[in-house]
């Protein structure tokens, strides 16, 4: 409970063309915990996390208003380079998306290699450490030269997590990271998420309520682009204050 505030959104609105996807979101995300964002399809969950590392604006016609404070500094200020923000706030996507032409090693090393021209033993160390953190090292340590796409879906997703960790971010955003995976791979990723929150601030979007209750410390419930309820996961699931939240949690709609 004593964790400090890492990200804070203030009157955050987002649009795709004329369609408004987020309405006046005020959310305070704490450091070194897992925050889950839940809600029915199309409620703006993915849009919300994509505004947190300025990926939303890459979609043609997309717009944002309001403020997103990362350690107190608005990432939408004119003097902020989105590229720098994305290094501090990493992202794992819904479908595993390793770079198709790169080996397992190069996938993990990509950020450092292409950005800082880092190489040699120092880079080997980082790659090993990140693959270990993503609990993939033991499975791939003898095949680092093989293409990243040769791995199974669950392994590819852990590879993508290792790739995101390699640039040493402060926050990791995960957009339904298990929706394309089988139950065993999902369980691995979930325990990984728990471990990661010791060192990183994790925000995970999920449409799976059991998953939210298993992995997260805090939960935010979104409906039609509005933040309906936000609090400790335990409270949201056991004692929701809002009638809408209760209906969604109990499966009356969604």
């Amino acid at each position, binding site marked *: 409970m004593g964790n400090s505030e890492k990200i804070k959104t203030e009157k955050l609105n987002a649009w795709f063309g004329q369609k408004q996807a987020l309405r006046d979101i005020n959310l305070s995300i704490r450091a070194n915990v897992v925050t889950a964002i839940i809600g029915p399809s199309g409620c703006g969950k993915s849009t919300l996390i994509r505004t947190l590392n300025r*990926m939303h604006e890459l979609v043609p016609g997309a717009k944002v208003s309001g403020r997103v404070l990362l350690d107190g500094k608005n990432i939408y200020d004119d003097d902020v380079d989105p*590229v*720098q923000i994305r290094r501090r706030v990493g992202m794992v996507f819904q479908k595993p*998306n390793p770079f198709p032409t790169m080996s397992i090693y190069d996938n993990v090393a990509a950020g450092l290699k292409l950005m800082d021209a880092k190489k040699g033993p120092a880079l080997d160390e980082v790659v090993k450490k990140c693959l270990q953190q993503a609990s993939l090292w033991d499975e791939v340590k003898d095949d680092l030269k093989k293409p990243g796409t040769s791995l199974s879906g669950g392994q590819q997703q852990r590879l993508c997590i290792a790739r995101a960790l390699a640039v040493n971010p402060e926050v990791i955003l995960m957009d339904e990271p298990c929706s394309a995976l089988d139950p065993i791979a999902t369980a691995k990723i979930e325990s990984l998420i728990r471990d990661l929150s010791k060192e990183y601030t994790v925000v995970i979007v999920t449409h799976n309520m059991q998953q939210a209750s298993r992995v997260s410390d805090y939960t935010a419930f979104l409906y039609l682009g509005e933040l309906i309820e936000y609090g400790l996961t335990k409270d949201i699931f056991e004692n929701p204050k809002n009638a809408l939240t209760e209906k969604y949690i109990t499966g009356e709609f969604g």
Partner: protein
Amino acid sequence: MLSSYRFRRFKDKIAYVLCLLCVIIAIIPLASIIFEVIARGAPQLSLHFLTANGLEGGIGPAIQGTLILIGLTSLIGVPIGIMSGVYLAEFGGNKYASVMRTINDILTEFPSIVVGITAFSIVVVGITGSFSPLAGAAALSFIMIPIVARTTEESLKLVPTSVREAALALGLHHWKTIIRVVLPAAGQGLVTGTLLAIARIAGETAPILLTIMGNTYFFQGFNQPMDALPLRVFLNSRQPSVAVQAQAWGAALVLILIVLTLNVCVRIASRRQFRK
């Protein structure tokens, strides 16, 4: 009941035979051309014929000229074509790009004789002051650029958005994402497009007719007239001497073999892409 079934089977057969006939009709001219060129051209082929200059009865200068033209044209056309394709695919969401895309499509099917006259009046008259390989390459790159740009755009569009997003979310700049992640992922498509464009320009006659003029001797310099295979076929076939006409058949066969080889390479390159 049974008779109507038979009738339908009969109609089915008729349709099948008609389709087959059409295919045969379409293939006959092509097959007869290839047969004729091989029959008349093959007896010409010898080391002497392929390497000697025009005075000694060879087509060495023409083969050398075609290779030089392919090299020079690719040097101009491939970088410009690929970069145009990158622009259209990666930054092509605006109205300028859609205008450019339309112009590019028109250029792909542009009458090549007009391209030849343009290169003649700009490069031959204005720059080199003589028929020259440079003028030929300029004309041919005019034909090559739109083809390469189009195939580059198409193969870049096949690279999933999720791959671009992965790179951008790592904090890579857009240009680095394109060069190090998107272009390699589209690599086979770029190779295929370039080879197709080379096959196309290797056989073009009209643009080089007005720009390189032809030469009996080997390469004389970048501002001197040069020979090329399609040009040699054209010039020799208009001569009265039977021996010289026979050389045209030989040159035609060599040209067909070059284009055929390039097409086989395209097949291999694109098959690799699909296997991935």
